[in-house]
């Protein structure tokens, strides 16, 4: 029974230009066997959040505060040795670019065995057996022969499978996937996502899926957090998020998506660009781009409050319930009208 409980996580970087507040006050809960989707664009802090959780940031540059509890054990402030024990053993992580994420001068067998040998005191033979086994589980054909090949001898999709194998070889309870399919073709992406779903069932693990692609989130996630400007701006169960989003940024994201059934009408666009983390906007991070901005939005950061659906759906916005419901209904009507017109 494991879970990851993050409370009020803050991460800032000391740079030459000043202090960058990459993550501010992020909290969430990840239950065993569940999939959490983390959606955001550049500068949203979605990747930095989980690099902080894993302890992969350079302590000389990054200042992290808050609480990260894995099964009740506090990770922030834990010794580096303890964090190393957990990384790759109880939490696995895979990254975006499979082309550069593997050491080019070592065979994939060696790299997989390394993952085992770091955490288990077993013979090399045993580590190799385990490596071949997991390569088979990620559907790499002829695993027994390919294990001695080098990364450049595999395609992008295959390399990502190797990465997944490496992250799962020690049977972790949790897999953090940072944009794992962004660099892949769409048919390869479908394969990898299906593989991840199957493995989740097989290994009974929790998955964190960090992505900017709302389609991927809709397909894989049980719960979703939407991040903007280093903060969580909305969090909900996946169905609720797509049916009744409560916050203008989420509306904008959903509205600006070109759809497969679109008629080519003008997309709803969010003006401006994602915020600078060096000089974050005052008050609500989204206010410079929000079409419903009010004076209070510039001054005060709205707190996370639950929606009518309950505690599971929280969001930040100063607009009152009635206005929000009205606006969303209008937008949704526009979207559906387009769909039926198609």
């Amino acid at each position: 029974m494991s879970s990851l409980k993050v409370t009020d996580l803050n991460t800032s970087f000391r740079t030459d230009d000043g202090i960058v507040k990459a993550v501010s006050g992020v909290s969430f809960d990840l239950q065993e066997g569940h999939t959490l989707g983390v959606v955001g664009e550049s500068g949203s802090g979605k990747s930095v959040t989980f690099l902080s959780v894993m302890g992969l940031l350079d302590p000389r540059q990054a200042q992290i505060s808050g609480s990260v509890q894995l099964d009740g054990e506090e990770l922030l402030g834990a010794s580096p040795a303890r964090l190393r024990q957990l990384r790759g053993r109880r939490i696995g992580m895979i990254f975006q670019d499979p082309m550069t994420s593997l050491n080019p001068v070592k065979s994939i067998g060696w790299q997989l065995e390394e993952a085992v040998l770091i955490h288990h005191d077993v013979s090399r033979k045993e580590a190799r057996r385990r490596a071949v086994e997991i390569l088979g589980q990620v559907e790499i054909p002829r695993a027994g022969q390919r294990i001695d090949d080098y990364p450049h001898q595999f395609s992008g999709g295959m390399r990502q499978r190797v990465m997944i194998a490496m992250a799962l070889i020690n049977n972790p309870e949790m897999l953090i996937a940072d944009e794992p399919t962004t660099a892949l073709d769409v048919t390869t992406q479908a394969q990898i996502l299906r593989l991840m779903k199957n493995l989740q069932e097989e290994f009974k693990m929790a998955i964190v899926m960090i992505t900017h692609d709302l389609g991927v989130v809709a397909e894989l996630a049980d719960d979703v957090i939407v991040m903007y400007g280093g903060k969580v701006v909305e969090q909900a169960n996946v169905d609720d998020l797509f049916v009744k989003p409560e916050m203008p940024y989420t509306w904008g994201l959903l509205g600006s998506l070109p759809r497969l059934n679109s008629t080519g009408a003008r997309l709803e666009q969010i003006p401006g660009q994602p915020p600078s983390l060096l000089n974050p906007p005052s008050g609500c991070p989204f206010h410079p781009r929000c079409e419903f901005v009010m004076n209070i939005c510039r001054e005060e950061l709205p707190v996370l409050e639950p929606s009518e659906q309950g505690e599971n759906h929280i969001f930040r916005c100063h607009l009152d319930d009635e206005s929000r419901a009205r606006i969303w209904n209008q937008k949704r009507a526009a979207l559906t009208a387009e769909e039926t017109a198609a």
Partner: protein
Amino acid sequence: MAHFLIRRIFWALFLFLVATIITYLIFWVIPTNPAQLAGGHAASKEFLQSITHRLHLDKPIWVQYYYFLENLVVHGSLGRSFLNQQSVDSIIGKDAPVTASLVFGGAILWLSLSIPVGILSALRPRSLTDRVTMTFVLIGISAHPVWIGLILSFVIGYKLHLTPIAGYCNFWPGAPGAQCEGPVQWAYHMILPWITFMILFAALYVRLIRASVLETMSEDYVRTARAKGASQRRVMIQHVLRNSLLPVVTILGMDLGLALGGAIFTETVFNLPGLGNQVIRAYNANDLPIITGVVVFSTCCVIVFNFIVDVTYGFLDPRIRLSN
């Protein structure tokens, strides 16, 4: 892999050919009168004519070149010195080991220094250690080897009497008329030359290694290794070093090849009887065969070392080793 090797060998031979042609052209064709240079100022007309005939200087250029090449490849000879008729091969054979001992000894020193220092600097970028190191690097690159050599020779050799001021001792005892001999004396005399020679390279390599290690440490696969729970030690040794030192191999090969042609400054300051010193002397005396011989030899060294580097690199990097 065999393909790769054969291609490299072909290419090396081709380069050798081109290098010898150009060398020959520069020294034997362009100067006005090789025969005059060979015969000396006081040479009579008949003597000059006999030289011209003997050195094939009356034949067209490509025939001259052919004889030159034939001499070199078939007979292994680079001709004879104009000054004293000594065989150029034997002169080179005598001087090359001196230059080699300077270069290889210096290389071992500079690598032993620059690799740890470079890595340390990369691990603590912008720290005090790093800044101090970089300052020394700047001095090392800017200061001329002659200046360094003279300063060291004066301060440590002359004033402090810690090492000899100049001169060379044979490693192997038994040469006639040698002032000193034997490994200890040899090393003792080489200390200052080694330091002088290696300072510039050490500085350059520290900078190179630091940059390479810094760049490698920010690669994605290093992050992957950390995500697997690898310790810093493991990350450095297994993932960073192997990849970041690859460029060093390439550059080292080139530097060694070039230096073997004669570390002119160091040899001059410390009066070491190596190729550098020899070629300067020959140049001042217009002794064409020796000049040509040393240039051909050093070109060969560069080609050979480049070849070795190519092969080593191909061996170390599986992407090259395994490409079909």
